[in-house]
């Protein structure tokens, strides 16, 4: 069956909350309400004509107005696939710190969803209600924040490890060039050989790098109309 037939089948099932089929996309997708996602996937899995035996991929996408959950299901027996989406609209002022959307877990329908949902919780901060093992999966459990959010702030410190490269002293055998210069400078009576001003109180250890597109193309400060990120690897 193609996506249109699958969509018609879903509509005929009488399940609530099934939206339109978007055929303009390269992979046509069906929008459903968050409340009916478990019922929809169960129907797709168990219906004789659909037989979506496998949840191939589950992911979340952050957009300006919402976080979208995307479910790719496919049938090996029937040779077809369908994309199902649900949307969690962003509340006013909802950001990384204040907004954790919650959707029902589908780990009871497909066991494959278990790890996928844990990963989406870990990296994007989407809570899955009813998940059997709702923990982080890739990052340590004590990690703060969800890195794939667009407004995620890079941490400066984790578990005793500074994440700012400049804060890590370089090893130089025999004290190195800098030490020799400092010794020479102090011998000459020059006050303070420190090349770098000490960090002021309140100043962050680490500044998150600017997006690539705003950086100059060459170190000389010469910018062009084309940001570096838009150039190919050639």
């Amino acid at each position, binding site marked *: 069956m193609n996506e249109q037939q699958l969509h018609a089948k879903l509509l005929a099932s009488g399940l609530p909350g099934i939206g339109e089929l978007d055929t303009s996309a390269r992979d046509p997708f069906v929008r459903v309400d968050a409340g009916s996602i478990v019922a929809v996937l169960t129907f797709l899995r168990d219906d004789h004509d659909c037989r979506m035996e496998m949840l191939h991929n589950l992911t979340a996408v952050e957009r300006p107005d919402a976080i979208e959950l995307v479910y790719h299901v496919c049938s*090996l027996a029937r040779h077809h696939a369908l994309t199902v989406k649900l949307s969690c609209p962003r509340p006013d002022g909802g950001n990384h710190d204040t907004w954790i959307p919650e959707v029902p877990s589908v780990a009871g329908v497909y066991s494959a969803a278990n790890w996928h949902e844990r990963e989406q919780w870990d990296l994007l901060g989407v809570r899955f209600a009813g998940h059997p093992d709702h923990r982080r999966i890739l990052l340590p459990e004590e990690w703060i924040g969800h890195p794939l959010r667009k407004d995620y702030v890079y941490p400066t410190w984790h578990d005793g490890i500074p994440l700012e490269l400049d804060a890590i002293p370089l090893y130089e055998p025999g004290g190195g060039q800098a030490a020799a210069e400092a010794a020479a400078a102090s011998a000459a009576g020059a006050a303070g050989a420190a090349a770098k001003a000490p960090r002021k109180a309140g100043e962050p250890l680490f500044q998150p790098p600017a997006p690539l597109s705003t950086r100059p193309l060459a170190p000389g400060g010469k910018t062009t109309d084309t940001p570096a990120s838009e*150039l190919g690897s050639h």
Partner: protein
Amino acid sequence: MEALELYAVDDRADVYTEELKLNLGPQHPSTHGVLRVELRLDGEIITAARCDIGYLHRCAEKIGENVSYLQFTPYTDRMDYLSSMNNNLAWSLTVEKLLGVEAPPRAQWLRVIMAELNRIASHLIAFGTYGIDMGAATPFFYAFRERESIMALLERPSGARMLYNYIRPGGVAHDIDERWLPDVLAFCDEFEKRWAEYNTLLTTNKIFIERTKNIGVIPRQMALDYGLTGPVLRGSGVKWDLRRDVPYLKPYDEIEFDIPVGEGTHGTLGDCWDRYWVRMLEMMESIRIIRQAAVRVPTGDFVEKAMLKMYKSPLKPAAGEAYMRCENPRGELGFYVVSAGGASPIRCRARGPSFCNLSVLDALLPGCMIADGVAIIGSLDIVLGEVDR
């Protein structure tokens, strides 16, 4: 009297031991990388298992959102670093799907040969390390000898031995030299003889069979439920291969090849031995594919002309999204890319086969002995670089 009590046997219960918690890994030779499995043990029997992953996490998906479409290709190399060509291929096809372009025929046939050569190299590692897991160190050296030939072959067009960055959106990076295809065919002849050697070394070894048969059985329904793909799925008797079922490259449609599936040769369908044997047979199928493809590589461009222009100017696909899946040596690698019209995607999701295949481990281990757990982890053939991304 005291002595008698010491030897008294409590016949009301079986012999039991205190529960022991054991960490397998993260630094353990049989976990194939930095994987930690928390085991609860009753004697030598595993009663519960919990995987802990993420030691190699680099957040490749975040990197993908900060670099251009072309710049991300080398990062895909580093996911499943044993099958970089296949990762490049999946990423390139995803970007091409997003842009609505297609690689020229010569590039398509070259891609098939590269992907299949890399598949053999990857299965050779699976074969060699599986021998080591089972206490047979010799097959490893044999496997690495042939893998060396493949790496030398792949180095000639790509310039790299492991992380190729060769298949790129629009085609391939460089053309092959004149002697390359004959050399590939010569390798195929050589490999056939070597493959027979592997079987005398490991496949027919009685100890190896005893260690792998009836161990770690994954029934068909369980494999589908957990989203397992690749040799792990086919080992459970499911005849499903994207190269045949959803041909993502045209040549796969025109080439004849079989899809080996597990048959429960030594006992139960879907055991460790079936998964091992599927990989062995797949190597020969890849040789079959390469032989047919090597004589049919057409002349012409190796990269799409329209794409060459895009290499020099910003590559900005129109807003939209694309999901593409490819048959990697370890299963189906899927990329889900969402573009908002900019030079970088706003979401760049990689669905790694190792990640999904590993998720079944927690359910497989309880009831096994520790040594069988090692056999099961090896038979899943995971690469932690892709599990953690």
